[in-house]
């Protein structure tokens, strides 16, 4: 799955400007996670047609990158994420970042790891 990452300045109104742009083109954000630092943030978004949205944002001067991420369905009960994290740790895979969301009653986590291919195989194998 492609994730769209966007550089957002850490200042008053910057998220408003950004979301207004999406609104104008009727773009729906399915999932959003924002990592913040002192002077900037990285908005990580899951949208339909990420390539098209990336082009649109680039045209408006935003710095944008598309990244492959994994979306894992987690069972909606305690310990589900722990199971994923434990499995990855056992295989020496570090998690770069992770965020979760619930879609239609189904809990899911978005993952970026140090070795995406291996992660994909392990998760497939384990049926996570």
């Amino acid at each position: 799955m492609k994730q769209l990452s966007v550089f957002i300045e850490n200042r008053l109104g910057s998220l408003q400007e950004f979301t207004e742009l999406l609104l104008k083109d009727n773009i729906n954000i399915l999932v959003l996670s924002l990592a913040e630092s002192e002077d900037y943030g990285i908005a990580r978004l899951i949208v339909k047609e990420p390539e098209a949205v990336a082009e649109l944002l680039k045209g408006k001067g935003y710095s944008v990158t598309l990244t492959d991420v994994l979306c894992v369905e987690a069972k909606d009960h305690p310990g589900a994420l722990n199971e994923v994290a434990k499995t990855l740790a056992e295989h020496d895979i570090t998690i770069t970042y992770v965020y979760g969301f619930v879609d239609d009653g189904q809990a899911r986590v978005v993952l970026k790891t140090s070795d995406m291919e291996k992660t994909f195989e392990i998760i497939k194998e384990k049926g996570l």
Partner: protein
Amino acid sequence: MSRDEMHHVQSQRLIDMVDRVYHNVAFYREKMQKMNIEIGDIKSIDDLKYLPFTTKEDLRDNYPFGLFAVPKSEVVRVHASSGTTGKSTVVGYTRKDVRLFSEVVARSLYCAGAHKEDIVQVAYGYGLFTGGLGLHYGAEKIGATVVPISGGNTSKQIQLLQDFGSTILACTPSYALYLGEAIQEAGIQPEELALRVGIFGAEPWTNEMRRQIEKSLGIKAIDIFGLSEIIGPGVSCECEQQNGLHVAEDHFVPEIIDQNTLEPLSGNNTGELVFTTITKEALPLLRYRTRDLTSLNYDSCECGRTNVRMHKCTGRSDDMLIIRGVNVFPSQIESVLLELEETQPHYMLVVDRKDYLDTLEIQVEIGNEYFSDEINVLEALKRKVKHAVESVIGINVTIKLVAHKTIARSEGKAQRIIDNRKL
């Protein structure tokens, strides 16, 4: 000394100096030949206007010792201008020059009201920078007691002010402000200290800063001016009237020129300050363009001194910034950014003063190619830029990543500096 006597002294010394640079410095000989000036054409100080200018660029082009007028064996000390660790401007002193340096600082100290009984705490940095050693030698020359503590280490500074009973403090004005606040925070009243005079320079400061320093430290704050190219501190200094800085014009002849036409202006006009060092041996400079903007006052002072006074400098004719006493040129930062492939030559410098210390923030645009979805990667990029810039300009900076194309593009001279210090 009357103006006539000064004119005579300056004229004799200039004639001697022109003879020396013509014979000993190829750079000046070639310049004078190109301009068709012969040694004999210079008959008095009034002929100064026919001589060529010298710029900081010239010093850099002849780095490190190219403009020295004496064999290197005669040079007993070098200093280098603060700022660049790349190509800085190097200045040299013969034994006689070091004596002259001590002499003009000693005069400055007397001018500021110092005498033999004083204890002078020198909180300027010691090293390649001329401030520390300059004040040190001058204070020794008047027979005062020198406390060579150098810059920083505020708690020690305060302790020695208390224990030694230092009566004179020499440092940058911003450090004096900082020290004043630190003293208040430590619960010490200014009256408890023996401090009575401060000699502050190496960076521009306002009269508001002066009042604040005088109040917080309970002293008289005196402005001292100098630049390493000319000799260091002691080129000029205020007297107790605090109404203009008396120039040691029997050694350093000041002129004011129009910064665009380079024509000399009469003293009371504001323009670029130019100095000719008529007695210096190792690095005599003809008409050195300081880029500082000020004006001159030839009226005699209430203190009785007759030498010309320069007003506090009001600005600069180039874009040089003085940050914590260090000279910083935006072009140096630009060339670092151009060398790093991750950054674009679009940047903004934001200078501010927080807790009485200057800060420099460099805003750098993040382009698409180097943008990452990981904070770690972007933080590593910031560190890389920070190291690269700091290794060239020699002071601490903070890097701020800003969005692509947020820094205004300009066809002409771009506005690249925001100075919030209100100097």
